[in-house]
């Protein structure tokens, strides 16, 4: 293009100058518009991928009512009061209504609306609370709390983070395709993790196993 323009300029002094002065600014304008268009399209695509895709991929569900971990830890003193091992070595996970009713009765102990919901709708009717479990692994996974906490000496925080200090239950996010909790893939849509509890995929298990035991483990160690 520039060669042609140069030739045009060489053709004649009058015509060449005329063409040259007209063409220059027009080309710059086209290039500028192209860059603006590219940036605009990039921004739209980037933002829609960044902000809309997670919303599209995950559905949000609220817990039946808010649970204040902080308050309960203050009252009971530790995690094990509610999240305990059964005699057969299995882990109770989220305790059943029976465990809650060791302290709670038909009368609310506090004054929050959430406890009123708990007492009226679940305790009074003897109904289990349908909690949504953030940390639930896919069906093919066998996870042993005994192996990690009792035999491995790990604390709850290493995998669950600072859940014990939270005073409200965040919404449960479910992957619309797989049905798994968002906590498995992690909050970061690109799968970047900063803390050990940010993501709980198979590779995360394997990395820690390799580090601590020198072996990723055989399939059946964590699968069923």
């Amino acid at each position: 293009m520039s060669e042609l323009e140069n030739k045009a300029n060489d053709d004649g002094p009058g015509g060449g100058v005329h063409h040259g002065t007209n063409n220059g600014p027009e080309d710059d304008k086209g290039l500028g518009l192209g860059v603006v268009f590219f940036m605009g399209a990039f921004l739209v695509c980037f933002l829609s991928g960044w902000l809309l895709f997670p919303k599209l991929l995950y559905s949000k569900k609220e817990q039946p009512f808010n649970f204040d971990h902080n308050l309960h830890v203050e009252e009971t003193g530790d995690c094990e009061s509610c999240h305990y091992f059964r005699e057969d070595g299995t882990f109770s996970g989220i305790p059943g209504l029976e465990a809650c009713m060791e302290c709670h009765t038909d009368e609310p102990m506090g004054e929050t609306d959430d406890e009123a919901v708990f007492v009226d709708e679940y305790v009074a009717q003897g109904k289990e609370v349908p909690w949504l479990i953030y940390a639930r692994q896919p069906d093919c996974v066998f996870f042993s709390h005994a192996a990690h906490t009792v035999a491995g000496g790990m604390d709850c925080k290493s995998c669950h983070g600072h859940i014990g200090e939270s005073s409200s239950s965040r919404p449960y996010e479910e992957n619309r395709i797989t049905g798994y909790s968002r906590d498995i893939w992690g909050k970061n849509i690109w799968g970047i993790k900063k803390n050990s509890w940010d993501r709980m995929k198979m590779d995360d298990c394997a990395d820690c196993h390799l580090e601590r035991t020198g072996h990723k483990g055989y399939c059946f160690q964590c699968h069923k």
Partner: protein
Amino acid sequence: MIENKKVHKFGMVIDVDKCTGCGACMVSCMSENNVPFKEDESNKKDSITWMRVYKLTNGKSFPETEIAYLPRPCQHCGGIGDHGHSPCVSVCPATATDYGYDTGIVSQIYTRCFGCRYCMGACPYHARYFNWWDPKWPEGMENYLSPNVSPRMRGVVEKCSFCYHRYQLAREKAMIEHREIEEMEYQTACTTACPAGAIVFGDLNNPAHKVHQIVKPDPHPDPMNHKVVGKSRNPNVFRLLERLGTNPKVYYMSEREWVRKAGDNYLKGEWENVKTHHGASSSHG
């Protein structure tokens, strides 16, 4: 190998003379492991039976006719030289099946399997089965499924796991009590269901376990065939197709010679040479 861990080698010995062919092992296995069945089970070619009872006859006419029943779970082969290269594990392109060097159990991971069925072709014991359909449970029956065993989907291969979930659960209990698991804490469903007590299950590496005491496995390679390791020193104990060197962890036992001979294919005159060949005497170790 995982360090600082006691290496188990779980296996079983099945007394063919005690087996009545009742099929309780097959039923218990299916219900324990959420094994799906078809609406019409009359075509046995694509039925899924992790444990299958075969019927053997000595081929003689009355009055010498004899029948024996041979239950066949996955043999959990150790592969040539017992190094963990089982026929199925060696061929799987997806690493959907592996050999657990800590237990000697061959796994099968259904979510990893993509159903090429290469392992089924590699298995000399027909112990692997393909899911041609998604499981369909009669209404209400899904409530009876075991939560400890993951159900399978269409298009994947499945097989006997030596009830590995029972090992997982037994280990959890032992862990919170800070001890090792005991022999009777981990027993497969077929073992516990057998009314004749024909199946004995345990750790072949543990001399205190009954299975070790019956089988008395020779830990050294067989001098006649170096592929074979763990040959029994008990003259009545044999393995299926033992000379292939797949080194199964399922042993069979019979006092009847024709049953022991049925465990492999022998050329004319071959049996006479090998029938008295057993694992080396205990002086070996």
